[in-house]
């Protein structure tokens, strides 16, 4: 599964993308798995209310299931326009 990071999430984690082998059932499980792996992930994910998540390029919530998913992305609230 590709895990992507944008804006300050990318900066805190230090790279834009991970390839992850995971048995995480939900986005939240994946977040916990990544946070346990390294401190910089724990820091980036410390306040989920400041984050948004997209699964296969659709905005969703942290309890979304990951079965069959190819791409998960984490980023702060958008500021386009």
């Amino acid at each position: 599964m590709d895990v992507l990071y944008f804006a300050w999430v990318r900066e805190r984690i230090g790279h834009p993308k991970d390839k992850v082998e995971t048995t995480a059932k939900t986005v939240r499980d994946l977040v916990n798995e990544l946070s346990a792996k390294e401190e910089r992930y724990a820091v980036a994910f410390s306040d989920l209310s400041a984050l948004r998540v997209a699964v296969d390029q659709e905005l969703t919530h942290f309890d979304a299931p990951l079965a069959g998913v190819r791409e998960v992305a984490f980023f702060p609230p958008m500021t386009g326009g």
Partner: protein
Amino acid sequence: MEIRVQQAGFDLGEETNRFANRQEGMGAVVTFTGIVRDLSTGNLDVMEIEHYPGMTEKALGKIASDAMERWNLGDILIIHRHGRLQPTDHIMMVATSAPHRVDAFQAAEFLMDFLKSRAPFWKKEVIGQKAAWVAAKDEDEESLSRW
């Protein structure tokens, strides 16, 4: 419907004429243009806009389709830049056409409200050696509830 996500600049006047001139039977055209403005706090040197290639086009396409379904429109144009921009550069524009003005206005406001908070763009302001990500505003999220 025309949606473009690009690094290159665009000519607002040319895009506006091109859009307006290809409409048939439309009585109203509305455009919105977002411009990099200098900060009240000092001199903005650069605005960097990051986006999520792939998802950006999908999200904008969905927002535009929703607007086409919801109002009686002729057409929609969305252009959004990414990369490094300078103060006074145009960041993005939307254009809508409709038989009547209320639809054109409402759809343009709807597009802007959703583009702001639902299309994956992030702005970073660079002043000298300092850079700061622009924080999302609560009022932008709240403005979605009116639709």
